[in-house]
């Protein structure tokens, strides 16, 4: 059996091995406590748990935004702990797509330019860049809104642009941290539909940190966390 495959043969994109994270301070906070988890290609997984359970910390570790105090995080067999800051930046650019709770779009760029920005950082040729960005925006249902800046888009639309930005670079995995938290019900449902559809049709891997039951009920893999530990991990068909 290959190292990047699990028992049933599906390839593993993310592998966390016994990772812990302690934030130093007058009273050190142990945010993660010996987490072991693997994410397979094509997973549509939710990472649920109450506030302070370690969801965001784990997503940050997997996304290479922070480093664990102990253990290893492997993305496509690259051990993040071994990478220097520049290599981590490159890994984030090429292998990981992020969707944040607060959308986090660049306010001075239009929707199209926000999506295109990732490809510019990857030095993708201009024509290809434009075509892929237009398609990504079309895929999230924002055709015709390419020229609008974030300030002229609704929250739901901004989050769709963030999804398009995360997808356009064809990452190994999209990490979404509370993507529906700032959205109204309708926009939240639409976003969940969109992510589900992208997972089913394009095979995009999603790991969604959330405590929104609507998201948890729609994902096909459910991972639960409490006090920095994985307490449940199950596939639902």
């Amino acid at each position: 059996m290959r190292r990047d495959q699990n028992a049933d043969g599906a390839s593993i994109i993310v592998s966390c091995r016994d990772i812990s994270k302690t934030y130093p301070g007058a009273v050190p906070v142990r945010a993660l406590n010996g987490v072991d988890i693997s994410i397979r290609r094509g997973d549509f997984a939710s990472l649920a748990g109450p506030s302070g359970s370690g969801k965001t910390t784990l997503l940050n570790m997997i996304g290479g935004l922070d480093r664990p105090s102990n253990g290893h995080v492997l993305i496509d067999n690259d051990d993040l702990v071994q990478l220097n800051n520049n290599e981590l930046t490159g890994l984030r650019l090429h292998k990981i797509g992020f969707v944040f709770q607060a959308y986090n779009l660049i306010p001075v760029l239009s929707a199209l330019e926000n999506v295109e920005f990732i490809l510019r950082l990857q030095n993708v040729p201009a024509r290809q860049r434009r075509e892929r960005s237009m398609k990504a925006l079309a895929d999230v249902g924002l055709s015709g809104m390419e020229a609008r800046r974030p300030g002229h888009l609704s929250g739901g639309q901004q989050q769709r642009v963030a999804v398009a930005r995360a997808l356009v670079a064809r990452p190994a995995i999209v990490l979404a941290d509370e993507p529906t938290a700032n959205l109204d019900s309708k926009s939240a449902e639409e976003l969940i539909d969109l992510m589900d559809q992208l997972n089913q049709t394009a095979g995009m891997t999603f790991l969604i940190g959330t405590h929104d039951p609507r998201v948890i009920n729609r994902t096909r893999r459910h991972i639960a966390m409490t006090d920095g530990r994985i307490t449940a991990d199950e596939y639902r068909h």
Partner: protein
Amino acid sequence: MIESLVLIVPLAWRNLLRNRRRSLITFIVVIIGMYSILFFNSLLNAWAQSTRNATLDLMTGSAQIHARGYLNDPTIAHVMPFPGTTLQHILSAPGVTWAARVRVPAIVQSEYKLLPVTLTGVMPAQEMKISTIPHAIVEGQYLANPSDNGIIIGRHLAQRLKTRVGKHVIVMSQSRDGANQEQSYTVEGLFAGNKAAEDDFIFTGLATAQHMLNLGGNISEISFKSSDAQLPSVIATLQKADPSLDVRSWQSLSPFTAATDQFMHGFTLIWSIIMFVLMAIGIVNTQLMTVIERVREFGLLRAIGMKPALILLQVIVESCLLTGAGVIAGAAGCVVTIQQLHNGIDLSFLARGAEFFGAGHVLYLHVIFQQVLVFTLLVWSFGVLVTLWPAVKAAHANPVEAMNHAA
């Protein structure tokens, strides 16, 4: 690098337009700072120049030639021959004007009073080119030629002597053979200058003075004017041509004027530094705000894979554009203002004050392009430099901490 700039420059430009008010404030701070530095630098330079010229143009010139010993004992005992062909050739170089004088201590007497003065025999046509006194006649007229046997005295001296144009005065001095000589002169004109000059100097024709003092063709001094740049080489050439003569620059002849000149330059420098620091505080403040306010955004850029160097470049480009525009606008505004003031700034409304400081009534400002260039580059570089520290901090911030930073 070019690809990075193509990515960064439009982004930087839009970021500047994003917070128009703050960008405008920074822009105005830089404009005012740059304008003030250049304009007041120019004004103070003009003031220094005017102060210097007011003294040097009276009698001193840029430099003087004397017989050795004259400066320690400025009497009839230390005279020298009228310049020969070699000296005249050097003194006729382009940009150099000169005049020969006889200058001895004397006593002038009217029917009311007797006062000590300096009798100066001059060549009126040459004197016109190097001294302001022939142009400062307020009553009567200036001497016509070296043989003119009239006399020009200061307006204040005339008041003290209770004399006027057309009246006679007696001038007494010692001739070369040691005998006391006296001669009656008709007052031909009165000049106005500073009070000390009005009291001290009386002028007659060079040949008339030589005759009275039994000097033959000898003279006391040659005063000449040349540009500052030209002066050292002219002095060196003259000294080399006749080592027996004492050739001295105005700095050596008039140490007080030289010290004042140096003081004015020092003052100008201090003023420039003060303006620079004030402007720097304004720039640092706004640039720091610009970076600190956007820590979240920089965190996002780091999170999605933008390298720290690119973030640093973005902040530098923003600063470069904003400071650069301000610096250029400020410098251009100042150059235009100075060119509009080509007729000079008339300070006659504070004439007495200006006179007290030794400056003329009209200040002529000049654009020194080298100075404009130096200050432009200095302010521009500084504006960019002060953004480096916050930019480096922002570029290397932990993405998670940066994104959690309260906006």
